[in-house]
């Protein structure tokens, strides 16, 4: 079984981004970029399927600027067999990415596509669902457990209030939540090995996809800052303040 994993290059999770003074976006010049953490979980899950002999080949895909090759090399170092970059300098929004991935899915015909539930930059949480819709595939989003057997994937999903388990017919799209697994550390020998693995570069036009943005960012601003309040010396003062000043308890 072929498994496709989709990885996005994003501002590293430890970087505190700054809004540009002209309000056109956030400043990402010279900041550390990494693989979207949810996508790292997707790659790890694909590797576990391969190690369990459920998957035979793991293909990593990314869409974006040529530096996404680094992100793909990371996926290859984790263990993916080969990689595909759909290269463009254009701003890519979730619908466009879903269309590019749908074209790659059509070409590669994987049984399973695994990707992060959201990217930590735009926090959109759309691409997996859109990809599933465009290919008329079932989906299992926010996965915290995945089991593949007899042409179906049984997925436990993290939903509001608890967990839900669904079974989806393959081929299907699964999006990962935080607790699906803990990604392994990439070792130096594997980084070296990854350099020799095949990485194919495609263009949106060759896939017949128009990636023009549909949403226009009017401005990007700092969130309203909350002011620190006061320190209370003891529990008694806290209770008095909550009761008489904030009036939030009775």
């Amino acid at each position, binding site marked *: 079984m072929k498994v496709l994993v989709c990885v996005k290059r994003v*501002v590293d999770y430890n970087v*505190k*981004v700054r809004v540009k003074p002209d309000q056109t976006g*956030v400043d990402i010049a010279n900041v550390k970029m990494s693989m979207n953490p949810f996508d790292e979980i997707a790659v790890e899950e694909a590797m576990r399927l391969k190690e369990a002999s459920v998957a035979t080949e793991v293909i990593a895909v990314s869409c974006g600027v040529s530096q996404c090759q680094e992100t793909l090399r990371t996926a290859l170092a984790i263990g993916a067999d080969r990689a595909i970059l759909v290269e463009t300098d254009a701003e890519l*929004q*979730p*619908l466009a990415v879903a269309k590019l991935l749908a074209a790659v899915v059509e070409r590669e015909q994987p049984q399973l596509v695994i990707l992060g539930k959201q990217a*930590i*930059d735009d*926090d*959109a*949480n*759309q691409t997996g*669902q*859109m990809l*599933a*819709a*465009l290919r008329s*595939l*079932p*989906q299992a989003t*926010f996965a915290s457990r995945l089991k593949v057997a007899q042409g179906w994937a049984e997925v436990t*999903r*993290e*939903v*509001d*209030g*608890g*967990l*839900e*388990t*669904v*079974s*989806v017919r393959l081929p299907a799209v699964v999006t990962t*939540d*935080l*607790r699906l697994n803990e990604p392994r550390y990439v070792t130096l020998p594997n980084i070296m090995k990854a350099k020799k693995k095949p990485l194919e570069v495609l263009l949106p036009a060759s896939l017949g996809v128009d990636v023009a943005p*549909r*949403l*226009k*960012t*009017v*401005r*990007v*601003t*700092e*969130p309203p800052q*909350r002011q*620190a*309040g*006061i*320190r*209370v010396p003891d*529990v008694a003062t*806290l209770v008095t*303040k*909550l009761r008489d000043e*904030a009036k*939030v*308890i009775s």
Partner: protein
Amino acid sequence: MRALILAEHDNAALKALTRNVVTAAVQAAGEVDILVVGSGCAAVAQQAKAIAGVSKVFVADAPHFADALAENVAAQLLAVAAKGYSHVMAPASSFGKNVLPRVAAQLDCSQISDAIAVVAPDTFARPIYAGNAIATVQCADPIIFVTVRPTSFAAAAHGGAAAVESVATVADPAVSRFVGREIAKSDRPELAGAKVVVSGGRALGSAENFKLLDRLAQRLNAALGASRAAVDAGYAPNDWQVGQTGKIVAPQLYIAIGISGAIQHLAGMKDSKVIVAINKDADAPIFQVADYGLVADLFQAVPELIEKLG
């Protein structure tokens, strides 16, 4: 303009957050219809029609809608959404996030996720980078798909009298099956809509110690929450997690106990009306957003707080 809202419910009762979406939809589009997709969900339609500002309630009732499978609900929403709506909206909950992008993509439309303000009928504000920036985005698609962050909009009032209409149900796509559900049974209010939230962090040290917070929550009729660190350590269940990748809450009172205040966590609770922080580390970032900060050992302060509250 007319918006269609996908109702969230459990076939017996409408989820309260649907009301918050109505408020956003009235602001954006003026006219609002609601679609209820479920099985044996007549009671839900009755609750939906009584929301002020709603014109029509459409009901698609069939056995294969019982468990809100994304493929099935999306297929039904798709059939109704194409009837000349300017907007299609759903709550930014695990239900809405699951279904809405599917329908948007099928109509070749983009989606605005997690809207926190309506700027103009086609323009919405939404948080990006875990709430560290707010983007104002304008949509040029023929139908504007939006998931709405419920805590950013007031709940629409009762007092409407919308017409209820059955719609033809779409066939079961039969590509997915519901297996089971583990929803924590609790007499505490639901985290996302609670007026008071008591949250614990890694400093609690164990699942056993979290029971201390349960007593406080009981006294305040509060929902229980936790930081990601506490959830990852196994002290609290996953669905208690408050933060950018967990639940977004905005209660009247948020009490953060033994939580340092990572950006990830702050993104999930900084819109609370009043924030109380109890932490023994005086330099913890949580104090920078707290209205009332108490530097103390939680194992002394919390029992004392329960006692003083009576």
